[in-house]
């Protein structure tokens, strides 16, 4: 319990420091908010335009798709708030040997390096995405149970953790490739798969996107569990893959640290 409290307090300091830092660079603060709003508007416009040419996509109609869009915008906002800045800097720390300073601190290095840089501006974007979700739910033609909405929100958070796990695994390749960004950029390119409903994919692509590279589990599966009948198999699949990916992250982190050779890395 004391450990949890200690880490919670530490995270609180990260958040407080981040707010003071972001208010010093006000132009950047507001521009980053605007940047993410443009991203959400493009996501919504894309599907609204597409639905001018088709009545449904992957078995979903437009109101259902808007809930899906709200879901993946939320996973993006959570990621941008909690993890993105940290993972962006990680390869540089590895290549320049700056990782040493984090390894010497008396806290979990994985915790410190993944949560240290809290993006205060993206927190505001998280509220915006919540607004998009409320809008999508209000225009949804059928009533949605509060319990299912709550489950959806939890699973969206789970989706963010899953994306962070995938991104982390790809970024950690910097320990071995010594390239400027590891393969973290791949996670962002491949996230395009997660920005479309899972049922449009078929065959091996679909199998891969629900297991090895589980981008379809990030927002598509939570949306299915919200707007369709609750399927326990889908839920267990989702949670099982998340646990598996996080076990892999921890294992790979420890394995990579054993191969880390400081400044010459």
């Amino acid at each position, binding site marked *: 319990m004391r450990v949890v409290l200690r880490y919670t307090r530490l995270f609180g300091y990260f958040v407080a420091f981040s707010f003071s830092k972001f208010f010093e*660079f006000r132009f950047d603060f507001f521009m980053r908010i*605007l940047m993410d709003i443009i991203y959400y508007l493009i996501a919504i416009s*894309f599907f609204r335009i597409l639905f001018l040419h088709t009545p449904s996509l992957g078995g979903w109609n437009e109101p259902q798709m808007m809930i899906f869009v709200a879901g993946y915008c939320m996973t993006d906002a959570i990621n941008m708030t909690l993890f993105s800045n940290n993972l962006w800097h990680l390869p540089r720390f590895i290549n320049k040997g700056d990782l040493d300073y984090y390894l010497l601190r008396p806290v979990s290095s994985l915790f410190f390096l993944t949560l240290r840089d809290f993006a205060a501006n993206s927190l505001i974007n998280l509220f915006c995405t919540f607004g998009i979700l409320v809008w999508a739910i209000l225009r949804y033609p059928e009533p949605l149970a509060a319990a299912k909405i709550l489950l959806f929100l939890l699973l969206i958070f789970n989706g963010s953790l899953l994306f962070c796990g995938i991104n982390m695994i790809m970024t950690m390749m910097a320990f071995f490739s010594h390239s400027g960004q590891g393969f973290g950029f791949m996670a962002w390119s491949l996230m395009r798969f997660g920005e479309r409903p899972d049922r449009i994919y078929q065959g091996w692509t679909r199998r891969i996107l629900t297991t090895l590279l589980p981008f379809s589990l990030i927002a598509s599966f939570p949306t299915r569990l919200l707007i369709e009948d609750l399927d326990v198999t889908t839920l267990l699949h989702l949670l099982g893959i998340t646990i598996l990916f996080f076990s892999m992250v921890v294992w790979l982190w420890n394995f990579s640290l054993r191969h880390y050779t400081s400044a010459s890395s």
Partner: protein
Amino acid sequence: MKWIKMVAAMELKKSLTYRVHFWVQFVGHVGAELLVAYFLWKAVFETRNTTSIGGFSLLTMTYYYLFSACSLRIVRGGEGEAGYISTDIYDGSLTRYLLYPLPFLGFKYVAHLAQQGIGILQLLLVFLFVSTVIGFPNESSISLFTLMAGIATSLFVGYLYYLLQVCIEMVAFWQDVVWNLMAMFRMTTIFFGGAVLPLAFFPDWGRTVAHFTPFPLLISYPVKTFLGQITLFEWLESFALFIGWVLFLTLLSRWIWTRGVKQYSGVGI
């Protein structure tokens, strides 16, 4: 003029230092774009139970996304050196460029051109691979001529992208952070340029908005040229628009540069 060759060679060498990283990034990005577009439109065609939507068959649509991903890579020129203008301003390394006996913006454009060369090579490889695997659509107007014309169009349109990028990057003379402006610029380019959806699918208001921006010139124009979906008159009309934007942005970038250099402190921020 010897410096042009040297700068281009240096840029190529820099880009190819991490070869695995370089190719994985390209194949991953283009592969993801193509696969997602293919499955998305396959689902739309199946739902509509038709073989043509808005004049596109599924195969033509696949080529549309192939050319939009690859020509955007050529147009952007990998955003190498030109993308570092703000960094040069922030860390003070702009000073050494001011001392070099060559124009700073010329130096950056040559680096951009070298990156465009790599983009052309990548496009040819992807085109060869995809056309061998999936063949050509029956109604296709794609030919060696349209391929060459598309490459030429992407190359000169790259100058417009470069000018836009330079104008945004030089905001760094006055502001502490500009990467978010570049990110907004990229997203808007991709959307209103027609990389996410062909502009033909936009409602009238969307097409009107796009028409008043330079973005369709950056993506839709070269892609239509690649696909042979543009008449000579339309091509010349777009070219005239391109010239207009280039003249305007050349003047704007010079104005920003003159004012920015006066503002530049030379010690970073």
